[in-house]
């Protein structure tokens, strides 16, 4: 049974400038205040920009909201998937920067969930002048345990392989699981239908690749190079990014704030949207009311 309409503000957005290369490739969605500070939401492995539908609307009144899908996910252009480019997180980080360039975004607040947290870190290391703050939701620079350095990432290689098996098992019956996703957008039902069909759906081959890149990447050495302030939202009892990993990230990011959450699991943006929104608001503080135009 779908949740009731009006419980949370809906994202009343539209696709970005169709002239831009990234618009189609990354299904870029622009909403919020045209002159607001840009706030970019980046989804993690497993889903698409719908991940943010309980959080992003809270900033519509104050910010310019930029939502997008990574290539291979959601409504992105699958034909743009390039095995070589996306064989490392840097490829995804380049996409983020390309969107920023296309839309001439400055002073970006980048909110990245899960693997997108690291994608944001890489992008911000590359071009720090474009970023104001990073909000990292459940970040992990390395998921695999490294006995040589005593690092605990939470997983062994075989665990990841097993998850890839899960991906494959469930690919078989996936289409029957597809339930309509109501976008809270009664004016444009065709949009809802489109997104329903794309929600959490991925080409299984691309899903496997993305999983490999996500879980086999090791970006621990990159952390110390970040020059942009960052907020770490650390859930309790997150099996994917345990607290020790959040602590590690906090220790190694030069200008970071660690915010432990009451929310459990790996997706506070879905399971505890209000706590997530409040944590972000508190971190952004006065900036929320800043009058500076960001167009």
């Amino acid at each position: 049974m779908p949740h009731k309409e009006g419980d949370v503000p809906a994202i009343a957005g539209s696709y970005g400038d169709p002239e831009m290369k990234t618009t189609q490739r990354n299904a870029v969605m622009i909403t919020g205040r045209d002159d607001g500070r840009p706030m970019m939401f980046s989804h993690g492995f497993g889903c698409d920009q719908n991940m943010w539908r309980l959080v992003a609307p809270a900033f519509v009144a104050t910010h310019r909201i930029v939502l997008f899908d990574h290539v291979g996910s959601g409504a992105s252009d699958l034909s743009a998937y390039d095995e070589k480019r996306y064989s490392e997180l840097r490829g995804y980080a380049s996409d983020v920067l390309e969107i920023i360039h296309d839309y001439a975004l400055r002073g970006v607040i980048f909110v990245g969930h899960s693997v997108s947290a690291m994608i944001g870190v890489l992008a911000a290391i590359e071009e720090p002048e474009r970023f104001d703050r990073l909000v990292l939701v459940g970040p992990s620079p390395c998921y695999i345990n490294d006995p040589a350095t005593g690092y605990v990432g939470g997983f062994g290689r075989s665990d990841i392989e097993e998850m890839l098996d899960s991906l494959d098992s469930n690919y078989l019956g996936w289409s029957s699981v597809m339930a309509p996703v109501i976008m809270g957008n009664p004016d444009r039902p065709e949009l809802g239908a489109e997104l329903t069909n794309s929600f959490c759906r991925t080409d299984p081959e691309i899903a496997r690749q993305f999983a490999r890149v996500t879980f086999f990447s090791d970006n621990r050495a990159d952390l110390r190079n970040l020059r942009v302030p960052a907020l770490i939202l650390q859930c309790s009892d997150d099996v994917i990014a345990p607290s020790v990993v959040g602590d590690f990230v906090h220790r190694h990011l030069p200008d970071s704030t660690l915010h432990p959450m009451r929310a459990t699991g790996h997706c506070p943006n879905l399971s505890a949207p209000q706590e997530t929104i409040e944590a972000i608001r508190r971190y952004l503080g006065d900036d929320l009311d800043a009058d500076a135009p960001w167009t």
Partner: protein
Amino acid sequence: MSEPEATQDLWAPWEDDPSDLYENAPCGYLTTLPDGTIVRVNETFLSWTGLKRSDLVGRRRFRDLLSTGGQLYHETHYAPLLAMQDDVHEIAFDIVRANGERLPALVNSVMHRDDAGRPRVIRTTVLNATERRGYERELLAARRLAEESERRVRVLQRIVADLAAAPTEAEAAAAVVRAPEPAFGATSSSVWLMDADRAQLVSVTSTDPAAAGHDDVSLKARHAVADVARRGTVHISGSVSEAERDYPDLAATMRRNGRDTAVLIPLSAVGTEEKDGPEVLGVLAFDFAEERALSETELRMAEMLGQQAGQALDRARLYDDLRRSEERATFLVSVTRAMEETHRLRPRSRRLVDRLVPEVADWAAVDLRVGPDGMRTEAGSTSPDAGWLTETIDAVAVGGEPRFLDTGPESGACPDCAVLPLTARGRVIGTLSLRMTPARHTASAEAGFLLDLADRAGLALENARLYEQERVIAQTLQRSLLAGEPPHDSRFAVETHYQPAGYDLEIGGDWFDVFLINTDKLAVVVGDVVGRGIDAATTMGQLRSAVRALATAEAGPARLLERLDDFTDRVESARMTTLAYAEVDLGTGEMTYACAGHLPPLLHEPTAPPRFLFDGRSAPLGSRAGRRPRAERRVRLVGGSRLLLYTDGLVERRDRPLDASLQVLAREYARRRDAPLPGLPAKLADTMVGRGHTDDVCLLCLALGAEERLERAIGADPAQIALLRKDLRGWLAGHQVAEESAQAILLAMSEAVANSIDHGYRDDPFGQVEVVARISAEAIEVRVTDHGVWRTPDDSEPEGRGLDLIRRMMDRVTIDRSNGTTVTLRKDRREAR
């Protein structure tokens, strides 16, 4: 079975008990809080899993019951999906039983919300899907297998196509090195190719050239690559520690490159008949960043890849051999041709080494056993160790067996060298030493080609040596025959000129001779023997002697020719010789001449234009047409007449008929009527044929009666005065100048020339002194000219003293310093009065 019993069975006792329905439902049933914490679980689930209710309720989340991989999937897919759609169906999870075993399950969840829309509770059913999941897993495995194998087949097909199109080893290696990444997901791969000559494996290509471990490997080394090449079997190190056990080198490389798995595949062609096993032509190594086990199928595929690559390499090698043997054949032909372009020994040796370097060798030397010190011709810069070379050359020259030094410890100082015997007609005439270019096969691998080359070179050099030898002998012979002072007689003068052919060819058979038959009879002869080289020179010598011997019989030219015909019966090589022969009576001036097939002599009398003597002609010596009485002709010569005998080289030109050439000769000869006799034949030859002549030229010019005028030039060297005196004395005698006057003139001339040398050319050793003597009815005049600047020392007067002497002896002495210094001496002819 009876009806009532069936009715009895239909009565279901648990229909009354909803809790039984819940607890013993045919599916597991869990109720959890929105965060997954289990608040209620049914008996079915507990019995399937062996878990205790007390351990679950309030203590565990549903997620915690899943395998780790399942947990990851739950967190990334299941939970978000449930949060957004409020229900999720038929998700396959493995539940971990109490005993650690897995329970394959299909899971459905529904999220219930309160009136405010807040998540309240999640109800989850778990269906035991052991069989279905097993079946699905099989399907999945089959599908994966099919997909995998399809992908691999595609990869393999592409690689095989690439391999088939690879004409060289390098291209085959480049094709195969690209395979492991798409086929197996390898991190990087490299290829080594077998260099059987040098017993090593050469690292030729890699997808990650920056990584460590791409060195050439000796086939004998304890090294994974060498081992795989030797054994021809696959080697897999599944982990660094495994590699450590087998090959510490490999383990170190893996550690440096951050690899956890390494696979080495032999690239082997299908065995040929003479070899029992497959021949390994190279090794493909690929590695993985993670620990990775190859499946049976993957292993088979890798082996197949190795075989395909091996066959491609084998084919490329055959192509290569074919191309190489074509190249060699062409090379041999071109070397032979280049050598044959020149006849002499040293140029031929030079051609040989210059062709060998750099195409075949970095350095090459020909050592020939000629002369006292032998002869070396070398090219290239990297000569091998001198001591080794000298020793080896001596050994090869003596034993006649080639030496190859390209493997083994002793090759250190001179790697890849060969010393080959140069043999011809069963004799070792020298050696050919080579240091091979690294780009080619080693010397011993090229042995067949090199020995072939040495054989050809040996023969060509031997021929050059023989040619050289013959040429030296022929030249010596000819020089000895042509040289020899013509008789010195005031009644006549003779000038000769012999000019060998302009090209580097064998000497010809032209000759001339001048001799006195008796005190009053002079014989002159010019002849041309058929053929060239030492045979012609020998024949010429024999004929020359024969002519001299037969002339003493004084039977005249015609009889002499007839006897020479007889001579050709015994000396076959003299047959068809042509010659012009003349006898001159020095007292009467009567000349008898005869021409055997030879060009007509050219006579120039003082009062008439030159004319050819076309009479007295007959056929060449020993010819059939010549076997009849020979003709001769008489002609009376006046004093001052000049007679020219010559060979065909002077007038035979491809671009001019003979008649025209003879006319030119007559004109040129007439033009030089007043030119001094010395140098006249040479000047004529120069005018008529120039430098590029293809034939020998031989001229003899006889002047009857002394010259009107004597002209000589000598270098500023007092020693040459003696020659001048000799010439002048002959000239004076020829004009019947009285002895007393002659002595005075000779002394005065000597003083004047000495003065010119001493004073005029004190600082110029290359100056020339010209002397011209003229005679008239009244007096003899000698003019001595130099072009130096006279320097007279202040305190002495040697000039004066010399001049005093001259003035006393001469009737008149004039000195002209307008252009250099000319001293004119005049002596009146007392005898003429």
